[in-house]
């Protein structure tokens, strides 16, 4: 504590607000910082105004914030992910613009540029990819396995609350103080107190710790849900491929999030309590940090990409009107990747001083991952082979993925060779590589899933035209932005440099910034697509629930699904049970009897913990100790008080279930079926004509 700290406000002073910097030193750098802060404030004011004007606070609280329904929690995760995606993309554009403005120093201060690549990485991994993956998984897993909810609905809500409050810290850091300049990996000793006494690394630490706890809770939840709540007959080898990938992701979370928590908390101990885990003096050892971080960091990559593989598996099968080729090999490949992902972390720091032998072992282990991944690529291609392919939006994302991801994977195999890595590490070649796997791999998969399952969630389809525009923009934008980076990387341009001098880089930088603008168009076309789709929703309604002639259980129920998902828990007899039932003409059976259904009651605990943990993080960042202590006590008390609540369930009477279900069955029988040629026409009300080729 220094003498300027007050007992009440900690180290928070007027200097922490960017407007102070603008007044003292008006420059392009300060204007951009203030514009970013202004966007956050205007965004908050706009949301609050809209909610107040349309009197939506009550419905928001009752139907969403306190809901323990996995479908609503899933949708909230995805809304949060898309908001954060917008920020992450715009930061990417500013960074590309800074480098395109060279040779020379561009328009940003070095610290500002460093903040940008730190927030960009942190946001895209922890607050876009993770919540998007969880959002889809939340929505889908219970529907796919024939369950009424996840195993722990309230814990699910708490996981969302913690993820959102941690994400909010990144927004707050735009307005109050600054974020870390240490990259998304935050290596000490640079991020230690000796070199970085400010609040930046603290924002990073607490955002990571709290979102990590939320992620762990969610991972446990999905693992238990899939192990324990499968419908009768849903054996493991009958699970949809997507559920397999979620099991593997959950296992990765359960074992890989603790290293991140340990790394961040030990860094916090160094910074707050003057410990010596990673400091330069008194026996600290930063290599422990590198090992801990990447012991998490590498499995993290796979816990993001495996669910995307699952989405592609569902999309390829449905839009090829074929059974997924090589199901068993895909399961084995997924599990192999999950296991291998724990054996390769050292390839993130080949150049940090271990022996050649150790590097060779980890290099070979890394290359091994290409084998199961290759199996998957061939299985997907074989699924397409002789299928009756429809080039709908999810399929287009899938095809872009197949071609581009192979390039990204191959550049990964190149980097897995330690001798090559010594040449290109810390260059833009690496940046090109991981964007090449994360965009076509993870993001395209998530967007494909968003387009594919949107009608299931909301009862109407997304606009095809704007969907195609977004595919085109994302694909072209990706190619223009990141392919040049491979070349400048090989030419030796270091990553994370706010300034450069070699004029031969310039053309590549110009192409890359054009690509970034095309990606921005992709982002906006997603938003336009959503707006147009909501406006034209009467033309695209598909209440029967199966607009794509799909194969898995979630399509056998109404769109949007009722709160209890399944009026009668299905009895599963084979893989792709719904497709087989349609083939036999036995889909949409009328049950003999209905029963009362117990569903989780609404609770505010997730929201309460979201708010308290947010204030707690802010207090810790700014050394407002009394507030941090108060929030700690309040969080513990909130959980204890909640644990005394025994009326956690409401019962939906059988009669109500029967009425709803029979009304829907009547709709099924009165709706004309459409074949696949009219899939995107208004007459597609969600009942598929059984014109699928025989299930091969």
């Amino acid at each position: 504590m220094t003498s300027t700290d007050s007992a009440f406000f900690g180290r928070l002073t007027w200097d922490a607000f960017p407007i102070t910097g603008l007044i003292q030193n008006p420059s392009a750098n300060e204007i951009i910082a203030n514009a970013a802060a202004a966007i956050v404030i205007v965004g908050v004011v706009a949301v609050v105004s809209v909610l107040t004007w349309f009197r939506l606070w009550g419905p928001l609280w009752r139907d969403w914030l306190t809901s323990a329904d996995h479908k609503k929690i899933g949708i909230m995760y995805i809304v949060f992910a898309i908001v954060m995606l917008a920020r992450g993309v715009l930061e990417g554009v500013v960074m590309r613009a800074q480098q395109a403005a060279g040779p020379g120093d561009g328009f940003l201060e070095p610290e500002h540029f460093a903040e940008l690549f730190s927030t960009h990485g942190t946001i895209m991994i922890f607050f876009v990819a993770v919540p998007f993956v969880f959002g889809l998984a939340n929505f889908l897993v219970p529907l796919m396995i024939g369950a009424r909810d996840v195993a722990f609905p309230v814990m699910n809500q708490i996981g969302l609350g913690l993820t959102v409050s941690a994400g909010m810290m990144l927004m707050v850091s735009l307005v109050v103080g600054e974020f870390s300049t240490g990259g998304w990996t935050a290596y000490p000793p640079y991020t230690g107190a000796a070199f970085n006494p400010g609040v930046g690394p603290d924002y990073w630490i607490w955002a990571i710790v709290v979102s990590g706890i939320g992620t762990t809770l969610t991972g446990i939840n999905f693992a238990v849900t899939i192990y324990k709540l499968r419908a009768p007959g849903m054996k493991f080898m009958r699970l949809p491929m997507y559920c397999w990938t979620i099991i593997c992701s959950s296992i990765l979370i359960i074992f890989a999030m603790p290293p991140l928590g340990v790394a961040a908390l030990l860094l916090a101990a160094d910074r707050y309590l003057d410990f010596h885990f990673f400091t330069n003096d008194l026996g600290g050892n930063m290599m422990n940090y590198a090992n801990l971080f990447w012991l998490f960091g590498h499995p993290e990559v796979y816990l993001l990409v495996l669910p995307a593989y699952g989405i592609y598996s569902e999309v390829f099968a449905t839009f090829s009107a074929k059974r997924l080729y090589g199901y068993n090999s895909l399961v084995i490949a997924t599990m192999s990747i999950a296991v291998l992902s724990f054996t390769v972390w050292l390839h993130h720091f080949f150049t940090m001083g271990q022996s050649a032998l150790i590097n060779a072992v980890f290099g070979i282990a890394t290359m091994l991952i290409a084998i199961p991944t290759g199996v998957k690529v061939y299985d997907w291609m074989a699924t397409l082979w002789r299928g009756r392919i429809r080039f709908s939006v999810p399929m287009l994302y899938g095809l872009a993925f197949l071609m581009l991801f192979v390039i990204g994977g191959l550049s990964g195999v190149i980097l897995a060779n330690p001798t090559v890595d010594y040449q290109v590490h810390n260059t833009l070649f690496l940046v090109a590589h991981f964007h090449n796997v994360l965009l076509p791999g993870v993001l395209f998969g998530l967007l494909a899933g968003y387009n594919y399952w949107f009608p299931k969630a909301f009862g109407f389809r997304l606009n095809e035209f704007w969907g195609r525009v977004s595919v085109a923009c994302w694909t072209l934008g990706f190619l223009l932005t990141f392919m040049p980076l491979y070349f400048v990387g090989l030419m030796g341009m270091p990553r994370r440099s706010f300034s450069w001098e070699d004029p031969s880089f310039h053309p590549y930088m110009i192409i890359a910034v054009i690509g970034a603008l095309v990606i921005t168009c992709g982002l906006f076309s997603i938003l336009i697509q959503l707006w147009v789709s909501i406006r034209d929703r009467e033309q695209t309604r598909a209440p029967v629930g199966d607009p794509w002639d799909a194969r898995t259980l979630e399509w056998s129920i109404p769109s949007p699904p009722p709160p209890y998902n399944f009026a009668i828990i299905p009895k599963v007899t084979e893989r792709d049970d719904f497709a087989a039932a349609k083939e036999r003409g036995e889909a949409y059976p009328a049950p003999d009897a209905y029963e009362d259904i117990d569903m989780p009651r609404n609770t505010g605990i997730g929201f309460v913990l979201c708010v308290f943990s947010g204030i707690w993080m802010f207090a810790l960042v700014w050394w407002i100790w009394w507030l941090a202590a108060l929030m700690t006590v309040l969080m513990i008390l909130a959980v204890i008080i909640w644990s005394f609540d025994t009326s956690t369930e409401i019962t939906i009477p059988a009669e109500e279930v029967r009425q709803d279900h029979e009304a829907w069955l009547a709709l099924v029988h009165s709706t004309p079926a459409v074949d696949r040629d009219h899939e995107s026409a208004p007459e597609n009300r969600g009942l598929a004509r059984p014109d699928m080729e025989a299930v091969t």
Partner: protein
Amino acid sequence: MRRAPRHSYPGINLGEDHASAHKASEVVTFGFWVFLMSDLVYFGLMFAVYITMIDAQAGGPGPHELFDLKSIFAQTLILLTSSLTVGLAMLALKYNLPRARIVLWFGVTLVLGLCFLVLEVRDFMNMAAQGGIPQRSGFLSAFYGLVPLHGLHVAAGCIWLLILGIQLRVMGMTDLVMSRVVRLALFWHFLDLIWIGIITIVYFGGLAYG
């Protein structure tokens, strides 16, 4: 030997006539096991950090100056006994003994847990008096990162014992409460397991290699 109850799931130690509690416990107990696995990884990594930093004493006091094996022995006995008493509470639950018996064993466990914490804190204070504070060296940072983490878990377990003791009286022997007793017992045994690791690796290992 008594026959296993009809609704028996592995790892849930409830009695024959607790069928509905068994059913209610199945999913949550499995989930709790998974949580313990994840928590175990936390401890495993802290053990690994400790082992890598055992030599990083930077001229400060090391295990030979700081560790008091007599106190560790006393703490071990107390903690193992508390595992016995929490097990007795489980048996009282399983065989439908009066609720007061469970509360009694919970009380004994709580007292033992608190005794353990008092001894542990006293050890830390003695270490600090000899200059063994975490700010002194990487080795001491690793020690204070690991052993108090276990202590924090014991403290959390003590709060849980207290709250669940109250819930046993207020809410009665509902399925929910019984399922919580099962999980608390698991948690407490887990703490014992970690402690065995701590005396072996931190104390004995530290004295042997530090």
